[in-house]
């Protein structure tokens, strides 16, 4: 049976061009980029080139790009590194729809006396700029706001948020793992001080990411050792992975974005016919939504059951249902946009990839309709 992979927000498949670049690097750039000899220098050249390529992609001028093991490490490093490096300010502002690796890092800092303000979002998942402005005080060390939300696809207005954060004299961090290469990011114009990006959401390898750090921020490293990455992140540098990351930044362009958006729109249009079903997050044509994200609630069907029935038909999607999580807690993002628990149980995220086709989406629409009908026949009553 063929697999229709519609979970590209979870991870993507390594692109052949990325694999080729990585494999070439494994061959002629395998050296330790810290070594003095030719093998080391070759690796160092590739590392420098990758750093430059990725920095240019986000118009970084006065920023250091630090390679990390991925989004989780970059977010941990941005928040903990800044907290450790700045002793005075003890307040952090964030939103209720951040990724767990931001929320749990902040929860960790709360144990050490930091105060965290978790901003509400509206029905579409957007932060209220006035509330943001009011939340920032003289004691605010950092404002961390996710750029493209991983569940409902909401894109925040970086430029406005960055402007407010800087006017109020704080530091701006954004987690752009979902939006990187799909949405324009300009470190200077958007007033971004700390930017988290990674490779495996854009057809690059897993285990590779980066944090861009504004000059002079004074972050403390989390990993101490041989002083790699400007002394901010020690450990022999994963040059082949980084070369793959760099190549991956070239995969999604205008054409790919248009392709994914058009398939996403086809999917949403097809599924909206279903009774008691709706799209969560901003409308598809609002310009406030990631091009490949669709998040829908199907009442009277449970998410894990939907995922597993679709899986049996070859379709890979994910759910915001508590029943599929390790904690049995429903999605905090769906809660933040006002979904009741009984609604979030029936919520499915579809995330389109560059290789999906119209036929696959058509098949998916038919399969989802059949699956929802089958599960609703099993449901005892409507509530």
């Amino acid at each position: 049976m063929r697999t229709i992979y519609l979970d590209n927000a979870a991870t993507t498949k390594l692109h052949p061009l990325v694999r080729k670049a990585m494999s070439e690097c494994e061959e002629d750039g395998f050296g330790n980029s810290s070594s003095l000899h030719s093998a080391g220098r070759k690796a160092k050249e590739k590392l420098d080139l990758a750093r430059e390529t990725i920095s240019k992609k986000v118009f970084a001028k006065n920023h250091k790009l630090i390679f990390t093991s991925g989004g989780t490490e970059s977010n941990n490093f941005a928040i903990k590194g800044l907290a450790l490096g700045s002793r005075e300010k003890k307040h952090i502002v964030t939103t209720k729809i951040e990724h767990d690796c931001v929320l749990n890092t902040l929860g960790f800092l709360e144990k050490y006396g930091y105060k965290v303000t978790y901003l509400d979002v509206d029905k579409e998942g957007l932060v209220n700029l006035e509330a943001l402005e009011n939340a920032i005080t003289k004691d605010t060390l950092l404002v961390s706001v996710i750029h493209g939300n991983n569940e409902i696809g909401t894109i925040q207005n970086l430029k406005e948020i960055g402007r407010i954060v800087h006017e109020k004299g704080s530091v701006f961090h954004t987690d752009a793992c979902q939006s990187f290469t799909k949405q324009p990011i300009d470190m200077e114009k958007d007033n971004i001080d700390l930017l988290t990006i990674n490779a495996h959401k854009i057809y690059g390898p897993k285990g590779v990411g980066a944090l861009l750090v504004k000059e002079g921020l004074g972050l403390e490293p989390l990993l101490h050792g041989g002083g790699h990455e400007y002394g901010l992140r020690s450990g022999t540098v994963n040059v082949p992975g980084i070369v793959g990351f760099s190549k991956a930044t070239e995969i999604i362009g205008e054409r790919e974005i248009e392709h994914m958006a058009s398939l996403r729109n086809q999917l949403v249009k097809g599924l909206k016919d279903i009774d008691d079903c709706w799209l969560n997050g901003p409308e598809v044509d609002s310009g406030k939504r990631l091009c490949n994200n669709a998040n829908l609630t199907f009442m009277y069907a449970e998410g894990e059951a939907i995922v597993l029935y679709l899986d049996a038909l070859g379709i890979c999607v994910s759910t915001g249902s508590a029943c599929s999580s390790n904690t049995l807690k429903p999605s905090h993002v769906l809660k933040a946009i006002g979904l009741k628990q009984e609604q979030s149980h029936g919520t499915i995220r579809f995330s389109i990839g560059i290789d999906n086709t119209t036929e696959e989406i058509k098949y998916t629409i038919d399969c989802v309709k059949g699956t929802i009908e089958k599960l609703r026949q099993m449901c005892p009553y409507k509530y």
Partner: protein
Amino acid sequence: MENYSKKVMENFMKPKNMGEIKDASGVGKVGNPVCGDIMWIYIMVSKDKSGNEIVKDIKFKTLGCAAAIATSSMITELAKGKTLADAYKITKADVAKALDGLPPIKMHCSNLASDGLKAAINDYLVKQGRKPMEHTKEAGSSLRS
């Protein structure tokens, strides 16, 4: 989360005895939409040759995850043909065991089927003007005896 056993997946993909019994002798309604699982167990009670009341027919309707649907399907198989007294003794552990186990996190939240069956039996008894059976704390497996 831990993967489901083959048995769970079989019972989830092709549940047995899904549906309603019109004019059921008793209906057990457990769970709620907030926690994500709702299970209704329908039973038809009749007497066997020796005059014992047995679960002649049993069906279910369930909203919930794979474990909720699989345990519903399994309880109908375990209870069918049993005397009410024996059916009442079926425990969560029995259901899980018959499914070759459930992921630990699902043992309690989605393993409602034995509660649903007990509720159905008591619904029947109460409708008959009789005393409901008492919920005793689960211990051991009634299938082992």
